């Protein structure tokens, strides 16, 4: 069987800074993953619907607006509602270290801050994706 890692790269919140998300998406593609990109200003509802319909293994969210403490937990709740808690969820963007323990307690597997090499994100995903 030809099993590919499928990743949803999503931009929750209102900020339009997608350089990081797009660079990571390209790096994932070049690492052999299938990446679905949602574009900007996605609500948690839209993100979770896309994650379910696209049956992704990984949800990678990038946010630079500071609204992560509000939006990330909401996404985790909705994933649980849909029975999709086995999706590996990671975050990136400008997220203060102080907020990371809270986000991790909500089920975000890892938060990758500014300057993280794309290879580190990819290795983390390969090591932690919950194969079905």
């Amino acid at each position, binding site marked *: 069987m030809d099993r590919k890692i499928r990743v949803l790269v999503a931009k929750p919140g209102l900020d339009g800074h997608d350089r990081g998300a797009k660079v990571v998406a390209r790096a994932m593609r*070049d690492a052999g*993953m299938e990446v*679905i990109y949602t574009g900007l200003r996605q609500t948690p509802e839209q993100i979770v619907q896309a994650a379910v319909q696209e049956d992704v293994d990984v949800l990678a969210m990038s946010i630079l607006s500071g609204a992560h403490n509000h939006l990330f937990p909401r996404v985790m709740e909705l994933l649980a509602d849909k029975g999709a808690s086995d999706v590996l969820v990671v975050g990136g963007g400008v997220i203060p270290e102080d907020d990371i323990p809270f986000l991790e307690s909500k089920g975000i597997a890892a938060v990758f801050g500014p300057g993280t090499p794309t290879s580190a994100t990819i290795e983390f995903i390969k090591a932690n994706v919950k194969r079905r």
Partner: protein
Amino acid sequence: MPAKALPSALEAAASILRGDERALARLITGLEDGDPAAAGTLRALRGGSAAVGQLTAQVVGVTGPPGSGKSTLVDKLISAYRAKGLRVGVLAVDPSSPFSGGAILGDRIRMQRAEAGPGGGLDPGVFIRSLASRGRLGGLSRATAQSARALEAAGYGVVIVETVGIGQSEIDIARLADTVVLVSMPGSGDDIQVIKAGVMEIGDVFVVNKADREGSDRVVREIRAMLETGATLRQDLALRQGGAAELQPVLKTVAETGEGLPELVLALDARWAKLNASGELASRRARGAAAEARSLLAERALAELALLEPGLEEGLAMEIVRGEREVAEAAEILFSAIRK
């Protein structure tokens, strides 16, 4: 001899029929991965739907060159069919990278239901799935046809398959869709390049999108001229007797504003009615299924070949190079080896 459905397959099929999007999504993943269990689920799902007469979705293929506005057009078609009360399934196919095998699938961006309003209220009647073409360069993924059948069986009244019109995919789309919409647009200068010769015959409905741009009337004229030429070349007597009215419709749209969309939907409805009334639908689908089976057979044969004694293929190739053997002989030897 039809395969017997496993209990797990029946269970998955029942979930899908209850409207469980995740189960449907899982099925498509299984079909993409070539998982035998998925084939069983699809069998069970279609069996159930066929029993209640539910295999009646029009499968619409939308294909055209990059930048012609296909995704926006599909987005508007979704809205139009939703307004008619139909559930809509969409398969958006993009090429995989030939280097890494990975892909970036971005068609979903334009199809997200912004109209659903802020803060939620998503439309549960729309299922969008992005597929990478995987091994088949420029073509449709192996699973596309099967996924379209899965969506049909799951109760989506229209299934739209969007592909970039490059290379093999046009042939594939003609095989799996009941109706093929060929999208083009006014280009800069060499307008006729918008639709490659040889692709014309697969189009059932022609759309010149971005028709608010200069040159759209010229593209329409050129397409009509090509269709007429093609009809004449085929010595299609019926057509010559019936006049130009039987030519495929050529429509102008501006997907961004929705202009021309009602006409497109009317054309698709007319085509669908005709397919059903004439019995052409069944024969077309049968032709498509036979072709699909043949390509699976070819894939299967190649897979078998890969399992043969290592070096056989390479050895034969070297013999051809050295002039000790001809290609036809080598193929015959490989064929016998597979048959063993």
